């Protein structure tokens, strides 16, 4: 059952309207309907369908490649979905303009092309194409209120034809109206349901903390029960300048206020960073500046840059805006999805804002407990650098690193439990405790979140940083500069590395390959690659258009296709037929070989002896029609006999 007149054109126009490709949809609509006006159809062989199907496939793969290299993955998928009707319109047109009116399914798939024919293997693709148009129109995500009524109208139009004989039109219409109402109500509720599910799922996924670092606040896992799990995914690749060591810590954000087990960037705004000589300048260039390069994937081109302490500039990527906070966080907006940036760093310089009252604030509930520890350690009486060393020793000697805790959630007393009872926890405990103890001792301090650089990859010849290397530490203001204090015991690296799965090497190799591809994808080399791709498409299109032209020269009315190839098509007997045809004794298409010889031998002056050619004709027939074929000796005899006869005929003519 083919689509009713106008339905496919309407579907294409609907698709064009939704995707904004009306300029392309309109000619396609004309193409798929004009055969009804001209009545011109063609006899297409299966090979023609195969060729057109290949052309559609090439078009599809070209779209895939183009979108992969020019759009982010999620956007590429939806755009590809929205463009699909364009790729398959040649296939639909081939069906509509063919005498058969259907497509041989074997032509669509390369692996089926050798399969023998079956009656069930012809299909009308007009309705599947209609569905494709509707889905593609939806993928365009043009959130217009017209989408639903137009889509429903097209489906009703299509289904009107499928109405069974004897079915009441009134019942059909009533059911359709009910369907429209149910569907409309359903789509509204579905959208609400998704919002609710997303809200719940977000809490479920991110509620237990992890590597997610936000500029305004960090959601920590203090008091979390059970084992903290973070992924093995490689988040960063760090390559220091030749002869320089990789930085031990890369900071993404710092926070100055501790509220209800969360660290917040209180009273902090982001200000734009100037771009000077293709570098985003954060501070004056220090004398001992060196460069490290960091590769990072930015979600939708935005995110915080993990930077080593003392970074004075970043460069090597284009971005719509780069902003920084006085706490040292650097944020990129409208940047690339994969950024490889170079950070200009110094061991001595620091460009974070000076401390203020907020950097000395201690939560009221913990002040007493902290003061007692400070007193016991004698931190207040020491110089800041000495206090830092003492605090480091305090944590190294009396605490251990652990990702597991059991028992009930201690709530606000999580820190107290850590410092006084369990004396075991993960980096957030150590960093929080260190910051608050320093503040209690009168030393301004901040909480820093970022990554620890500790794993060198021989494969990549660079330092790699995984999600599980996400880390937290303290920043203390000592001697008029911000100093990093990593209070977490050094054993934490061994504990984290011990959690590596056995297939990590293999996964790293795959990740490396993906990374290289991603770099190439976003590199400038892409432009030249696209030129090559376009050239290949133009060439392929030209080849296929030539084929279509050949198809077009075979209209149905004048179809006089050459006979299909078969055994014995190379028989020399055809030379005899050709020779006699040249002399005016052509064989009629309906005439058997033997009858033809009898007929022309009876013509006075033909000088053809049927008996002399009969044996050659017999050999030719055996070659053509005997399943066993012709033996080599017989074939030689046929060749020799025909050659001799042709030579004799030539002499006779002379």
């Amino acid at each position, binding site marked *: *059952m083919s689509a009713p007149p106008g339905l496919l054109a309407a579907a294409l126009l609907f698709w064009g309207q*939704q995707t904004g490709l009306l300029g392309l949809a309109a000619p396609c609509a004309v193409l798929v309907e004009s055969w009804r006006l001209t009545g011109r159809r063609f006899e297409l062989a299966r090979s023609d369908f195969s060729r057109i199907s290949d052309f559609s496939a090439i078009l599809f793969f070209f779209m895939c490649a183009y979108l992969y290299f020019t759009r982010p993955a*999620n956007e590429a998928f*939806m755009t590809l*979905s929205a463009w699909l009707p364009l790729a398959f319109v040649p296939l639909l047109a081939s069906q509509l303009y063919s005498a058969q009116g259907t497509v041989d399914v074997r032509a669509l798939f390369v*692996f*089926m092309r*050798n*399969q*023998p024919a079956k009656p069930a293997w012809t299909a009308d693709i007009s*309705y*599947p194409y209609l*569905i494709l148009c*509707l*889905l593609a*129109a*939806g*993928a*365009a*995500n*043009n*959130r217009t209120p017209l*989408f*639903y009524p137009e*889509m*429903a109208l097209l*489906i009703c139009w299509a*289904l009107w034809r*499928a*109405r*069974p*004989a*004897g*079915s*009441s039109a009134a*019942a*059909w219409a009533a*059911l*359709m109206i*009910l*369907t*429209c109402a*149910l*569907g*409309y109500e*359903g*789509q509204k509720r*579905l*959208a609400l349901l*998704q919002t609710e599910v997303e809200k719940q799922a977000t809490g479920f996924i991110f509620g237990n903390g992890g590597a997610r670092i936000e500029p305004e606040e960090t959601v920590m896992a203090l008091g979390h029960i059970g084992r903290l799990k973070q992924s093995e995914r490689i988040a960063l690749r760090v390559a220091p300048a030749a002869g320089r060591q990789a930085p031990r810590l890369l900071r993404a954000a710092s926070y100055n206020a501790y509220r209800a087990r969360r660290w917040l960037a209180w009273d902090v705004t982001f200000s734009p960073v100037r771009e000077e000589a293709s570098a985003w300048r954060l501070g004056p260039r220090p004398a001992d500046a060196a460069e490290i390069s960091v590769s990072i994937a930015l979600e939708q081109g935005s995110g915080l840059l993990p930077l080593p302490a003392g970074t004075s500039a970043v460069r090597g990527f284009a971005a719509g805006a780069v902003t920084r906070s006085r706490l040292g966080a650097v944020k990129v907006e409208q940047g690339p999805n994969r950024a490889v940036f170079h950070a200009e760093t110094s061991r001595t310089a620091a460009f974070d804002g000076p401390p203020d009252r907020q950097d000395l604030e201690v939560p009221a509930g913990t002040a007493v407990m902290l003061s007692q520890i400070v007193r016991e350690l004698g931190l207040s009486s020491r110089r800041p650098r000495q206090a830092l060393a003492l605090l480091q020793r305090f944590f190294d000697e009396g605490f251990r690193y652990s990702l597991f805790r059991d028992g009930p959630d201690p709530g606000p007393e999580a820190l107290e439990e850590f410092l006084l009872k369990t004396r075991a926890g993960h980096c957030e405990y150590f960093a929080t405790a260190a910051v608050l103890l320093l503040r209690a001792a009168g030393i301004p301090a901040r909480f820093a979140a970022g990554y620890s650089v500790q794993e060198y990859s021989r494969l990549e010849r660079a330092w790699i940083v995984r999600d599980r290397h996400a880390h937290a530490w303290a920043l203390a203001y000592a001697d008029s500069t911000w100093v990093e204090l990593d209070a977490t015991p050094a054993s934490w690296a061994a504990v984290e590395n011990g959690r590596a799965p056995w297939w990590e090497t293999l996964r790293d190799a795959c990740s490396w390959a993906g990374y290289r591809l991603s770099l190439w994808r976003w590199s400038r080399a892409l432009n030249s690659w696209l030129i090559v791709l376009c050239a290949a498409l133009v060439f392929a299109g030209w080849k296929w258009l030539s084929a279509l032209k050949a198809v077009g020269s075979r209209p149905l009315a004048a179809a006089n296709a050459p006979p299909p190839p078969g055994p014995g098509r190379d028989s020399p007997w055809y030379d005899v037929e050709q020779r006699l045809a040249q002399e005016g004794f052509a064989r009629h298409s309906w005439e058997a070989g033997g009858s033809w010889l009898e007929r022309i031998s009876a013509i006075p002056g033909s000088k053809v002896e049927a008996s002399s050619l009969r044996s050659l004709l017999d050999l030719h027939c055996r070659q053509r029609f005997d*399943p*066993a074929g012709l033996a080599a000796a017989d074939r030689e005899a046929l060749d020799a006999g025909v050659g001799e006869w042709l030579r004799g005929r030539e002499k006779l003519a002379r």
Partner: protein
Amino acid sequence: MLFDRLRYLGFRLNSALLYWLRRRFTPAGRLVLCGLVGSAIWGVDTTKSMAYQSFTFLLSLVLLALAVSRLRPRKLSVRRSLPRFATAGEPLSYLITIENLEGRRRRGLSLSEDLSDPRPTFAEFRAERNPHDAGPLMKDQRPFWLDRLAGLTRWRKLIERKMPARAEEFPVPDLPPRGRVEVPVRLEPARRGRWSLPGVIIARPDPLGLAKACVQEPMAQSVLILPKRYAVPRLALPGARRYQQGGVVLSSSVGDSSEFMGLRDYRAGDPLRRIHWRSWAKVGKPVVKEYEDEYFTRHALALDTFIKPGQEAAFEEAVSVAASFACSALTQESLLDLLFVGAQSYCFTAGRGLGGTDRLLEALAGAQSCPDKPFSELHASVAGRSAVLSGIVCVLVGYDEPRREFVARLRARGLPVRVFVVTAGPAQIEEDGMTHALEVGRIAEGLARVCA
């Protein structure tokens, strides 16, 4: 084992799903379901695509169609007129009469045969081998590599073997109130054997034309599907007439007529028609007439049923070849013994009034392979009758050493033996005037060549 079980379960569920879809949905309904699945994939995120609106619309459409289709057609009487025999590969046509027991017209009905579940058991699935395991295949017969790897080829093969015919739907003309119509049904049995038809399914589409309401009318009947037969010219079977013990019992109508020899006392097993009633009346004990023994031609058609795994297709073709010869070799002047081994050794004799071709074809329709028995059983069965046989036609599946020896021994007894070896692929067999190779898929060509 686990992988096998998982894919078996996958195929089984998929098969059930497809059956349900075909049974409960019209082609338009199946297309709508495709759209529903597509829109579910595209519209999974309602913020990224509008396809979710198509999804809810199509879902409402399908649910409404299914709900409305619960109203099934009732008060119909169905009767089927089924022939006794049909032939594998040949169309089987018969009529199904439907009577409307209600006072209102019924339109848009369709009917189909309720074929039995063709899905194999897990044991059958595991035991089945890939077609290429039996030998190399021609290019056009090779399955797609992915199908082979997934086990789909094996599954399809088993379904084809167990599925008697393609389930087709036939439209029912408009049923007048309290009237009846005859629906011509045409099926193409794919395989020989007894084919049970448990009932007929009558379907009515819903007003939207998407889902179908189905009613199953139980009507158990069966038809015997005879083996497929090839056109073979009459085979010139050599061999002299042989003495037939029992003489005229085997030739009651034509041929060498009986010669009366005398009377003798009744022995157990003598047929009643031979009793000479008047002599019995005279002497007071049963006396029978004795006739001269007879000499006439008697041929044997031996079918090899001892196949290995992977030779099922060759065996089916061997049965077809045997059936072709059973039809063509039988003459009014000779007897033909059909010999094969199944659960036991069977011998069916036809000719000279003992029975016609149909008897042999019925026997062949039910012939089963016996892969668990040795080939020597057929040897013993044939050798036991060799004294009365004028010649033998052997249809073998393969030509290995035991079979060669079987043929050689028969020939050593002076019996002319024509051998037809059916193989799955091109066979390396030295063909001579009496031994011929037939390849599956090219049997007709092979027979035409042999008999030319």
